[in-house]
């Protein structure tokens, strides 16, 4: 195309080139002409078939039909020329409530790429407050309480690998009469909170099979057999994310070391009429059940393996000292 460097304003340039290019652009959009002369008219949508899904997503999508036909999507670099829609009758814009952009262009919403609504796995959260500290706009608020860790008495091959008593940490002792009463306590009709079945104390030292602890409520010290003591620590009770302040920067997702913070693909449903509507509590930050289950299992397995390694290392160290001792 002859490109005149510093084009001089002359009659030829007055209208010929602009008129020609707008005509070409218009002809490209006609359903039949555009298709036949696309290449010559500059449609140029090369139909290269790049990879859309990484292995993880493809494995996960193996079952569902929808995700599979995403793979067969004809990729057009520019929306205009992908013939996903009949061109004459259909408006060009995606009709939002009826059509979704993630159906039209699934490669934009590959899981893990898009910073959408925040999804939290509250079960695996260990209340370490890393996310609360990293958030630039201070949108995360968390309330924690001293509790016996539910996950510790998990069954299956990860059983028994929960936390261990440590000096300086907390421990809990069951209150037998409350345990008996709890069986008959009807949570639904009772107007008061259920009585506390654990009594918490701080572990001072773990000499033999007895441990000296200082009760949290009364403060005086006592000696209790370690077998009765259950390890306890701060567990998260309620958390809230103020999406009114959040800028979706994703730092909380990176700061969380326990894969319990996700940013899902969802971009809608985060609106409200008052600022309170924008406070997302546990119920509104759910993640898809499949993802939730995978994350919990992965987290449990990770903790279990870490615990096994720790115990193995401790055992090996003890063995080494024993060997050194008697050598």
């Amino acid at each position: 195309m002859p490109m005149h460097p510093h084009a001089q304003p002359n009659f030829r340039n007055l209208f010929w080139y602009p008129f020609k290019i707008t005509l070409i652009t218009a002809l490209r959009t006609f359903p039949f002409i555009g298709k036949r002369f696309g290449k010559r008219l500059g449609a140029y949508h090369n139909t290269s078939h790049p990879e859309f899904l990484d292995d993880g997503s493809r494995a996960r999508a193996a079952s569902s039909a929808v995700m599979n036909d995403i793979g067969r999507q004809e990729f057009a670099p520019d929306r205009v020329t992908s013939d996903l829609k009949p061109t004459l009758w259909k408006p060009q814009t995606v009709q939002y409530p009826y059509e979704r952009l993630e159906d039209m262009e699934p490669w934009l919403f590959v899981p893990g790429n898009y910073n959408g609504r925040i999804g939290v796995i509250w079960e695996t959260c260990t209340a370490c407050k890393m996310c609360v500290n990293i958030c630039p706009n201070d949108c995360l608020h968390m309330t924690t309480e001293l509790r016996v860790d539910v996950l510790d008495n998990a069954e299956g091959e990860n059983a028994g690998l929960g936390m261990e008593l440590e000096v300086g940490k907390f421990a809990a002792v069951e209150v037998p009469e409350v345990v008996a009463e709890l069986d008959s306590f009807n949570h639904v009709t009772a107007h008061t909170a259920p009585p506390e079945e654990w009594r918490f104390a701080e572990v001072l030292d773990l000499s033999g099979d007895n441990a000296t602890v200082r009760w949290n409520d009364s403060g005086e010290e006592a000696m209790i057999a370690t077998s009765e003591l259950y390890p306890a620590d701060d567990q998260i009770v309620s958390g809230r994310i103020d999406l009114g302040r959040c800028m979706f920067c994703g730092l909380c997702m990176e700061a969380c070391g326990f894969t319990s913070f996700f940013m899902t693909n969802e971009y809608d449903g985060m609106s409200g009429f008052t600022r309170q509507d924008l406070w997302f509590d546990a119920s509104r930050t759910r993640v898809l059940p499949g993802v939730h289950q995978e994350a919990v299992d992965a987290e449990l397995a990770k903790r279990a393996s870490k615990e096994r390694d720790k115990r193995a290392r401790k055992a090996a160290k003890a063995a080494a000292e024993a060997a050194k001792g008697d050598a």
Partner: protein
Amino acid sequence: MAQMWITMGPQHPMTHGLWTLRVKVDGETVVDTDAELGYIHRGVEKIAEARDFTQITPYCDRLCYVSAMTWANSYIYAAEDLLEVEVPERAEYIRLIAAECQRLASHLMWLGAYGPDIGSLTLMTWCMRDREMFLDLLQELGGSRMHYNYPRVGGVKRDMPVGFADRLVAKVKLFEHRIDEYEMMLDESTIWLVRLQGVGYAKAEEMVNAGVSGPNIRAAGVNYDVRWAHPYSVYDQVDWEPAVEKPTSVKGADCYDRYRVRMEEMRQSCRMMLDAIEKIPGGKNTNYANGDEMILAKAPTRAPEGATGFSHYECTRGASQFYIQGGGDGRGKNPYRLSIRSPMFITIPFVAKTMIGYKVADIPAIMGSFDPCIGETDR
């Protein structure tokens, strides 16, 4: 005719953002101008003093909201200078690709706004259509379309997703034909030439003295570019040339030269991305896990007392600079003082003065050709 002050006020199609240009007009000719900035001053420099180094990146994205990636990169280079961190080669290549992709999107936003300023309404829709392609690419990298929070001190947050390279090549190749179409539409249209040539003259030395930088100064005929003058990243290993224009008159660069420079810069960005994606160490289709040492180096979070960091970066609109004095609240996690130099904060008053003598209808032509972005101006 009586001279009168017209306020091309904060809310005006010409301003491309929130600032006021009061113009004293004698009939149609501009006699005097007065620029008024500061409408969206958010005090990023003050907020940065209470945040640690990773938390500041999202704020730097929001400095110039049209080219967020380049501004976040600019800040991160300063933080890396302060914390003495070496970035792995692959991360530098990804940052280069992301920055050039953002430069394209930003130049398209400029052209899309500049067209209707001069009267050609079709440009807005064409440019937005093409900008969508590059916003999709950046969304795959950073996770959202405008503010990505993508670079980290020591590398990048996340590696290129699978298939990103193929999609990038497909889109850039299509866009190169689209630039030919823009040039067919504009370069040769007499009305476009008559409105831009001979309007808004600015000499090279006058601009340098006034602190103008970037494409505006390359339009005056010198290929000065921060990417080679104060080198950073891997611009020397990638195939590109600074786009430079030959001004037509001794009075310096006019609006047409600035328009030509930006069109050529778009071509150079395409060329750079196509070359970088082939040369990227670690292969273009591999995908490393987040935090892998190929894309993110180990970086300290505290700055030694009295250390300073400085970065000089070629943003889409000019040379953006960050100056950080480390050792904040005794623990060094926060910067003691973060100073941001915005190219447009100094260019806008200069342009306001160059408008004197031209017609009222030339104000959008001249102002638009310098591509003002008010987010970075007011910080």
